[in-house]
């Protein structure tokens, strides 16, 4: 559909798929500083879907919305390099400690201010794996939701969406406004565009310019400023943010100490493997 405005929800996440032995501190908390921060993989699938709609129809704009610390501006630039038109970083100390519900509350307010026709996000983020934020943002907006999308296109003013379910595929027709979450089985995101990298390389938020002293050069090189919103910009009620706005509380965090069994240690020698096979046959585990 021509002229629609799309907001892509994206999250910067620690790369939990590549966790080394130093990822946990002695006190059992996560040592975020040693984990590389990446663009949440399924949010990249979501961005690709938005960019495809932008290519196919006239006058479509794509705005990336992310909530996180100042450094999360990195993924806004990453989105701009791949073809997003602009981005908003939602950042405020008051957001810290928010569970999925408090997060969704803040994101929904920011979406309202951006007033898009369509919101697209990844199905879930790899640090929490909850898949809750998409549906909860939809509910806070009072919009319908379509989850696990793989492909979408317009027929008239309805969005036709193919969904990947655990045991099959379903195609639905949905009116706008709408929230869609995209599955990892959807097409991968396109690469960065060299021209856009040049254009946005030095785009910074105001806070980045103030805090990163090494970035003083950036200020002179680019006039592009990334939008940064705090609690007041979205008119949020502080009580509904952070720990106080989160119905779920973390009672206890346990570092993983697996209960060691008494394992039999074997080598890959023929003698060891054969005696193991015989033992398993004798106690009827196999055979």
């Amino acid at each position, binding site marked *: 559909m021509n002229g629609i405005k799309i907001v892509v929800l994206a999250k910067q996440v620690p790369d939990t798929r590549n966790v080394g032995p130093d990822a946990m501190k002695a006190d059992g908390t996560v040592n975020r500083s040693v984990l590389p921060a990446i663009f949440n993989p399924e949010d990249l699938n979501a961005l690709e879907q938005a960019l495809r709609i932008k290519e196919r129809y006239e006058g479509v704009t794509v705005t990336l919305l992310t909530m996180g610390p100042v450094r999360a501006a990195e993924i806004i630039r990453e989105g701009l390099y791949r073809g997003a038109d602009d981005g908003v970083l939602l950042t405020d100390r008051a957001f810290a400690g928010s569970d999925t519900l408090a997060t969704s509350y803040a994101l929904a307010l920011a979406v309202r201010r951006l007033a898009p026709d369509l919101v697209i996000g990844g199905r879930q983020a790899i640090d929490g794996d909850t898949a*809750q934020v998409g549906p909860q943002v939809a509910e806070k907006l009072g919009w319908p939701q379509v989850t696990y999308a793989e492909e979408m296109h317009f027929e008239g003013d309805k969005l036709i969406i193919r969904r990947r379910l655990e045991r099959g595929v379903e195609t639905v027709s*949905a009116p706008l406004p709408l929230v869609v979450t995209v599955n990892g089985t959807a097409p991968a995101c396109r690469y960065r565009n060299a021209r856009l990298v040049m254009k946005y390389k030095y785009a910074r938020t105001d806070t980045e310019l103030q805090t990163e002293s090494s970035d003083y050069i950036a200020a002179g090189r680019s006039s592009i400023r990334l939008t940064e919103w705090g609690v007041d910009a979205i008119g949020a009620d502080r009580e509904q943010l952070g720990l106080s706005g989160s119905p779920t509380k973390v009672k206890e965090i346990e570092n993983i100490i697996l209960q060691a069994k008494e394992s039999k240690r074997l080598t890959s020698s023929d003698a060891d493997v054969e005696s193991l096979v015989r033992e398993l046959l004798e106690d009827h585990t*196999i055979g």
Partner: protein
Amino acid sequence: MNNLIVFCELDEGRPADVSLELLTRGRSLANTLGCRLEAVVLGSGLEGIENELFPYGVDVVHVADDPVLEHYRTMPYTSVITGLFRQEKPQIALMGATSTGRDLGPRVSSLLHSGLTADCTSLEIGDHYVSKTDTTYKNLLYQIRPAFGGNIIATIVNPDHRPQMATVREGVMKREIADKNYRGELRKIDVASFIRPEDLAVEIIERHMEARKVDIKSARIIVSGGYGMGSKENFAMLYELASVLGGEVGASRAAVDAGFAGHERQVGQTGVTVRPKLYIACGISGQIQHTAGMNQSGKIIAINNDPVAPINTIADYVINGDVATVIPKLIKYYKANAR
């Protein structure tokens, strides 16, 4: 009375395994709490469905039977469930962590502002003390789940909001009939009173459900591969060993993410939970994400090159060596010794 309620999903007209597993766990939690166990089923043509649920010790089955509920759709299901929850005020609500439960759960929890924990691997009842306000909350639902890619286990509680909601993957809880003659009460939900016209805005144009092709859950022997297998091609030897032993092939999340195996084979918190007689973990490091889904296996053999891999600590046998060397030997000596 604030009861425990399980959202029962249907699988081709029959109660889904995951729902029966939740009823089994729900019965024991309800006993601890001294409350009733209730179930809610939505669909079309549900005549007699309650009889399949009562044996799990269900005291009340709420049935919403209406053609608009034939297939799952977010909005009408949300309206019926939240309508019922507002009326019944359950203290705990459980759902399967299926594509349906993971779409419905967050929507319902947001509407009721109740909080939801996804993919729990364990549910317990216990107290919770908050030092700041010097308050002890009695008999809360401990929602226990691995987090952060499986590197920590978190216990989540929901002190102030109801219902306390959690989703659980299929196969995590055991399924057990409480009493085959148990009879509860059937209550019909007035569907029309809950559904608004705008709930029907999203329409299903086409559905294509596939029969479950790979069923690693019921396999007696599982040969599972991890990222350490290196490639999809190297998985071929796992299929060979599995076929010789009469088992199935499983995979870790890292192996599935890398494209070595299909998602239906994924074992772990975000995959399938399995309890085979024998689990052979090949090139799997054993993050809790994975071990949460297989640590109740009868016997575990770990084959890998890493003497300090976490999987080794839960294995009965650890073969330190190259998977590509060990597997052909296992096949060879099995063939030589089996009668």
